[in-house]
């Protein structure tokens, strides 16, 4: 089911100061296509969870509308929206077994929708099989590992075959290895069921790795939406560029002058735009060690972590971090001359942002 948000806004009265109004979600306007996996991404407290709760119906928007398909669900309570929700702490009922937990939503159905015991049992088992916990049906939640609890929560959310599946920070309570496994599971389950799925995360790698689309938020404002790789390659502003990517993008103070892009006195490339002060974002993978390259940095050390070799340097114009990280292939020859190393930069991996509004400038 496709989801459309139309000028969706949610304002709260601040918990600390009663006179202050916090805008958790500010004028969201986008469409999520049917059957896709969407990662809602942003730093803590940016309004991701509020957005999810608005879609779910647990919170009412201050203004704006939400459509599921063509149906306006803005005023509908959550139980009538046909959503499945997985909470950050899973919210499995601790006194019920896995089976009872999964059956719970089906047992709520009344009247014409009421299901027979056999159907309930069968559908609970199907959901359990989908998430591969059908052998643990008689255990209590506290007898399961974090990953298993997570999957029970997904099975409970899916058992009613909702049109929309919402996951709030689904991986944040798992350890690193389990995260990798579980996110693949989420991907697989989403593909198998084809349910439109939105998951909230503050971990950009998580979102980038499994999402069809990512939505980047900051302080209640939608920054950019698109396919992960496209957002990564074409960030619309400095925030998005900095938020995506690990190691993070290197940011420099720079200028545009004489139809060229400068970092300090180094002319990086030709650049046709009005003369101005800018931020220059350079992805770690943009650096190519090159004797004749235009960009000079002071060499510090080489770090090898697994398959990556990074050259760590510094430059007085860098403002993102003391260390500039350049990821290069391991067999690259270094042209270290008096402690100065020269790079040429891949143009597609260099992004220029206005100092005024931090928006991207195309040359």
């Amino acid at each position: 089911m496709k989801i459309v948000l139309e000028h969706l806004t949610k304002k709260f009265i601040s918990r600390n100061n009663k006179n202050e109004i916090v805008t958790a979600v500010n004028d969201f306007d986008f469409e999520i296509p049917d059957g896709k996996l969407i990662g809602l991404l942003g730093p803590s407290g940016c309004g991701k969870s509020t957005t999810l709760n608005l879609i779910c119906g647990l919170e009412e928007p201050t203004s704006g509308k939400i459509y599921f398909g063509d149906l306006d669900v803005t005023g509908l309570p959550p139980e009538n929206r046909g959503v499945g929700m997985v909470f950050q702490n899973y919210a499995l009922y601790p006194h019920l077994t896995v089976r009872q937990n999964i059956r719970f939503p089906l047992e709520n159905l009344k009247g014409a929708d009421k299901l027979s015991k056999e159907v309930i049992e069968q559908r609970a088992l199907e959901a359990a099989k989908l998430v591969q916990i059908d052998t643990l049906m008689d255990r209590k939640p506290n007898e399961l590992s974090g990953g298993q609890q997570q999957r029970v929560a997904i099975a409970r959310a899916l058992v009613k075959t909702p049109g929309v599946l919402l996951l709030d920070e689904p991986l944040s309570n798992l350890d690193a290895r389990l995260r990798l496994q579980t996110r693949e599971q989420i991907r697989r389950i989403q593909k198998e069921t084809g349910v439109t799925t939105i998951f909230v995360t503050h971990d950009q790698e998580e979102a980038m790795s499994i999402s069809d689309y990512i939505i980047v938020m900051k302080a209640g404002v939608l920054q950019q939406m698109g396919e992960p790789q496209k957002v990564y390659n074409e960030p619309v502003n400095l925030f998005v560029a900095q938020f995506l990517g690990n190691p993070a993008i290197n940011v420099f103070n720079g200028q545009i002058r004489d139809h060229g892009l400068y970092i300090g006195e180094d002319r990086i490339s030709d650049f046709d735009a009005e003369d101005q002060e800018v931020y220059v974002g350079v992805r770690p993978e943009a650096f190519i060690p090159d004797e004749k390259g235009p960009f000079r940095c002071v060499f510090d050390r080489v770090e090898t972590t697994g398959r990556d070799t990074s050259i760590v340097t510094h430059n007085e114009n860098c403002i993102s971090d003391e260390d500039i990280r350049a990821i290069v292939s391991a067999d690259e020859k270094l042209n270290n001359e008096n402690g100065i190393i020269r790079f040429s930069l891949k143009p597609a991996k260099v992004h220029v942002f206005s100092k005024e509004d931090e928006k991207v400038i195309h040359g």
Partner: protein
Amino acid sequence: MGKKNDLKGWLYLLPALLFVGVFMVYPLIDVLIYSFEEGYNFASQTYEGVGLYNYSYVLHDPYFMQAVKNTFILVIITVPLSTSIALLISLALNSINKLKDLFQTIFFLPYVTNTLAVGLVFMILFKKTAYSEGLINLLLNSFGIASVDFIEGPYWAKMFVLCFYTIWVVLPFKILILTSALASVNKDYYNAARVDGTSKWRTFYKITLPMISPSLFYLVITGFIGAFKAYSDVVALFGTDLNAAGMNTIVGYVYDMLYGNSGGYPSFASAAALILFAIVLTITVINLLVSKENVHYQ
């Protein structure tokens, strides 16, 4: 090293052990011994023999049987009623936002009020004297119902006042425990239930109740024990001559046997106290057995 540490440990425990020994263990053993000493003379501290006569005497004493009956009626009526009323009030308190603190304070006030003072207030409310009918009776009269003497009148009226009073006195503590139990249930459970379209009743029955079951169980157990030990409330309402009023409780009987007008019989008192102990123990064990199935600790 182990031995040395052991010694140190016991040394640290000594003050506590001393107090427990002098004020708990020794009296307990003494009570047990008294209860088997027949014909014990308080003045000469001598006894004639050892046996079960004291128990037999107490169990055949109509005053004791009246006290047992009173106590059981009190327990059976007040424990379930006070717990469910407290639960209802707590649920209501938990569901309001405005003035919640005010109401919580109001409901907690009786807890910090002196038992005897409250007893006097109840007497004024219910007592019928030569000069006044009592507030409740005036109310009854206004509905065209004849006055009842709640304090010195028929048995059921006195029992009603006692139960009413007991429930009123124990409510604040129960409300306090239950409101905090309700507040500590993670809101996500309710949100999950809401998303899944769970009805209010089912949410209460399937989620809220199991979640607060440890607190409920605690209140039932302590409620039973507290009600079996009822005494000061009864004195506050009906005065010290409880046997004459027909409103004595088991603890009241024990006290009377020791210090009352007909007192001076520590052997009978001890036997009665041990019978009370046996009753409380039995009820508590039954409670524990029932709770195994229905109480969910996290």
